[in-house]
């Protein structure tokens, strides 16, 4: 029997052995010995241990001992060396054999070759998955500990195993979950994407990585990050797909919120209307925190009333009710929050005791909670209130509070920006109005990039269309042709880095040929980035210029009138000057005729008298020429004037009158007198006027010589002075100033415009005319005007201050 059993035992397709209760091996079957290559004698006792892999031996021995102590069956895995030296994994199953009293009398064991299974397990990073039931519990405790949904799925999509978190999320048992289709768990919108990812992964054997929403047991979809990795056997075949689904819903929400915020800030930056931004803000909050209604009210510019800002989902009648409510604590949560600059929470409006008027209205609109938060500017000024309403009583959570804080901040940015923009627009409008009123435009030129920016007013001055792109050529087309070289020169110098400063009057020529006068003040600077910029202002001075011209014309005419009036007074004197040579002509001509008629004719005498006739004729012509120059009406010119010569001519005109008036004239004309700048005729008019005044001032003087001194001299500061000193009645009690007023006169026949016109002429020459009493009798009148610049023939004072 025993030998029969032994044969059976030896024939079993496994390695079988027995041990004494103390663990001492007392039997090994033939297959054991054949496998290990050890004979029974070698292997019995402790000898078998030489066949266990050294790495596994320590653990094996410990487990073997604990099994012996437990007196219960057990399993141990270890590598066993084959006769040829190769190790293979074996599962050692050990069972105690007990007697009737339960005492272990023998241990029997069977070693099962698990090498193939071990190999496939080694391909899996989580080999504990496919363990025997005892190990499954181990897996579950680990798998359930992971903060994610974990599953093992066959390549055909069947669930092999799934962790408890996943089952709880889906609200299903493993069996139920196994029966569910993917469409039951993934959001319909995400399904195509997920299926495509899965198919692609199965086809290529590559991991996939996709995001989608999973339906929770309560029907709410949450976002998951879904990853799948293949598990392969030693041959490289995919055995399973290991799925790891991580809940990223909070992150997705935060991202959506962030994107929403970004969108809002972009709206702010791109200048959307404030109401549009606030509307979008409310909608974002409403989509983030489901079931709420959102509103923004603003404090009006006076700070006393609320104005509607936004409230996309609030009833219109409620918005109308809030709009215009006072900013105070009795007004309602929003009015109170804005007034106190503090958050006001009305968590349960039905039981609210504040706001007697507001509460019934809110309740009538189905609103039972209202959380109102002040919107404050960066400077701390309350701009309005941001409110969240709910249909039921509710207190804000920490998350909601942080949302409120974020959105209140964005609202403050939007409102402040809108207010700043409005202020900027007002300021720009103010500037544009100021430019329009002062006919002053401004420009900015990026010297390097040739970019030109003109203000609205400058477009008007240049008569340019704002819609047409600006080019240098277009702008130059508005310059008077004579000014273009100057404009070019300035630009070239600016481009060469010369910080050109211009302060100059220029002419523009419009397409219709009309001329405009503009005053240009411009300079070149560098901006923050070091780029060259030309900044300038252009004032249209055409009207001023035209009125100046008109004024100059009136002045010139007045001066002419004064000269003509003077001419009347001078008739006698002029008549004398002309009659004198005329008389000579007639006399000489008569003599000449007589000499020729004599017998024999006195040819020599006739020739002499004819010569004298010509001389006197020239003399008369000279007088007429001088008169014509002085009394003709011509435009004012500016040229170098020899004041001495001009004075001599006037004296020549006045000579006989002065003589008749018994005036003794002393002319003290400086030899080195430089030429003055001005209009010769007008200056002579002044000299004439001063001399005649002086002469008339002495008309009643009989107790002293009627001495008149006219003097020219060089002054400091490049000026020349002319002085007329008389010994007449003096300035009188009225003093000097009165003399220069128009129509002031002390003479019975005068118009009283002589000195007024004279002063206006001298001032027109950038000079000064004044009167002073003499130490002795009489008065002295003087004028001082700029001399002509040396070496310059035309000294027209240029308004151009030049290039610096």
């Amino acid at each position: 029997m025993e030998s029969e059993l032994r044969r059976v035992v030896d024939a079993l397709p496994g390695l079988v052995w027995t041990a004494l209760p103390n663990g001492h091996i007392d039997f090994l079957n033939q297959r054991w010995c054949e496998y290990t290559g050890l004979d029974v004698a070698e292997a019995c006792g402790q000898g078998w241990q030489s066949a266990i892999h050294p790495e596994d031996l320590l653990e094996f021995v410990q487990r073997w001992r604990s099994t012996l102590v437990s007196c219960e069956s057990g399993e141990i895995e270890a590598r066993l060396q084959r006769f040829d030296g190769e190790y293979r994994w074996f599962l050692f199953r050990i069972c105690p054999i007990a007697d009737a009293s339960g005492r272990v009398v023998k241990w029997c064991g069977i070693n099962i070759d698990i090498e193939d299974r071990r190999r496939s397990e080694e391909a899996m990073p989580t080999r504990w998955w496919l363990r025997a039931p005892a190990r499954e519990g181990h897996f579950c405790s680990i798998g359930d500990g992971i903060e994610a949904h974990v599953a093992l799925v066959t390549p055909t999509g069947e669930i092999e195993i799934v962790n408890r978190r996943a089952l709880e999320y889906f609200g299903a048992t493993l069996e139920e979950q196994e029966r569910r289709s993917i469409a039951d768990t993934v959001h319909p919108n995400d399904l195509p994407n997920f299926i495509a990812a899965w198919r692609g992964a199965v086809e290529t054997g590559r991991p996939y990585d996709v995001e989608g929403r999973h339906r929770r047991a309560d029907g709410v979809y949450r976002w998951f990050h879904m990853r799948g990795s293949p598990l392969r056997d030693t041959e490289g075949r995919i055995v399973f797909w290991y799925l790891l689904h991580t809940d990223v819903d909070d992150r997705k929400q935060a991202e959506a919120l962030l994107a929403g915020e970004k969108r809002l800030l972009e709206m702010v930056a791109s200048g959307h209307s404030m109401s549009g931004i606030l509307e979008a803000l409310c909608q974002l909050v409403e989509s983030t925190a489901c079931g709420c209604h959102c509103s923004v009210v603003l404090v009006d510019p006076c700070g006393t009333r609320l104005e509607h800002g936004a409230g996309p989902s609030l009833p219109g009648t409620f918005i109308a009710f809030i709009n215009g409510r006072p900013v105070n604590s009795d007004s309602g949560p929003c009015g109170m929050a804005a007034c106190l600059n503090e958050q006001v929470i009305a968590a349960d409006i039905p039981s609210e005791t504040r706001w007697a008027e507001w509460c019934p209205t809110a309740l009538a609109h189905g609103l039972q909670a209202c959380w109102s938060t002040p919107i404050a500017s960066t400077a701390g000024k309350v701009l309005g209130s941001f409110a969240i309403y709910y249909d039921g009583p509710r207190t804000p959570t920490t998350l909601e509070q942080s949302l409120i804080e974020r959105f209140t901040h964005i609202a403050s940015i939007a409102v402040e920006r809108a207010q700043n923009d409005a202020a900027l627009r007002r300021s720009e409008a103010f500037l544009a109005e100021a430019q329009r009123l002062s006919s002053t435009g401004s420009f900015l030129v990026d010297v390097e990039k040739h970019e030109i920016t003109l203000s609205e007013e400058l477009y008007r001055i240049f008569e340019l269309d704002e819609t047409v792109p600006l080019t240098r050529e277009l702008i130059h087309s508005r310059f008077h042709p004579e000014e273009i070289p100057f404009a070019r020169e300035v630009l070239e110098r600016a481009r060469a880095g010369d910080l050109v400063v211009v302060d100059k009057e220029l002419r523009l020529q419009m397409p219709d040929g009309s001329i405009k006068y503009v005053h240009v003040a411009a300079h070149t600077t560098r901006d923050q980035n070091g780029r060259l910029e030309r900044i300038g202002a252009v004032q249209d001075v055409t009207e001023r210029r035209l009125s100046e011209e008109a004024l100059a014309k009136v002045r010139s005419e007045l001066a002419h009138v004064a000269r003509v009036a003077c001419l009347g007074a001078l008739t006698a004197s002029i008549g004398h000057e002309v009659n004198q040579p005329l008389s000579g002509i007639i006399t000489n001509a008569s003599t000449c005729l007589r000499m020729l008629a004599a017998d024999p004719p006195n040819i020599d005498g006739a020739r002499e008298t004819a010569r004298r006739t010509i001389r006197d004729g020239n003399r008369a012509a000279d007088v007429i020429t001088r008169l014509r120059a002085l009394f003709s009406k011509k435009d004012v010119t500016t040229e170098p004037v020899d004041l001495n010569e001009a004075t001599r001519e006037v004296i020549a005109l006045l000579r006989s009158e002065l003589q008749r008036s018994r005036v003794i004239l002393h002319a003290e004309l400086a030899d080195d007198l430089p030429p003055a700048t001005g209009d010769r005729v007008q200056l002579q008019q002044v000299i004439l006027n001063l001399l005649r005044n002086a002469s008339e001032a002495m008309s009643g003087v009989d107790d002293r010589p009627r001495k008149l001194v006219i003097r020219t001299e060089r002054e400091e500061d490049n000026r020349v002075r002319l002085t007329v000193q008389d010994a007449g009645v003096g300035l009188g009690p009225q003093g000097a100033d009165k003399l220069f007023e128009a129509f002031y006169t002390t003479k019975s026949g005068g118009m009283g415009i002589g000195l007024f016109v004279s002063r206006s002429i001298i001032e027109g020459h950038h000079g000064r005319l004044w009167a002073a009493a003499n130490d002795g009798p009489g008065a002295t009148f003087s004028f001082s005007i700029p001399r002509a610049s040396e070496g310059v023939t035309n000294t027209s004072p240029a308004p151009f201050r030049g290039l610096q």
Partner: protein
Amino acid sequence: MVTRSLVSVVDDDESVRESLPDLLREFGFAVQAFASAEQFLASDYVDRTRCLILDVAMPGMCGPDLQRELTLRRREIPIVFITAHGDETIRPRVLEQGAVECLLKPFSETALREALNAALSSC
């Protein structure tokens, strides 16, 4: 030999002193010219002068002054005034004072001739 009548000319204008004597000589008079009243008075031609052609306006002593002076000295020389000033008020004044004529420059040969005739026939 017929002694020619002496006509004296007193005028500060040199061109008159040049031209007028020539014409008077053509008329057949002896002529003496003076640049001022003072010169004439100081000369020894006063008594010999049969007719005085006198400018009204001159520096220093003017024509009417000389007329008055001659009256004071009882030298009743016929005087023909000449003046370049177109002033009509001077003429009646000097005529009232005894002048033969007052010619306004420019005057014609005929007018001069008539004035001289009147002057010379008056004595």
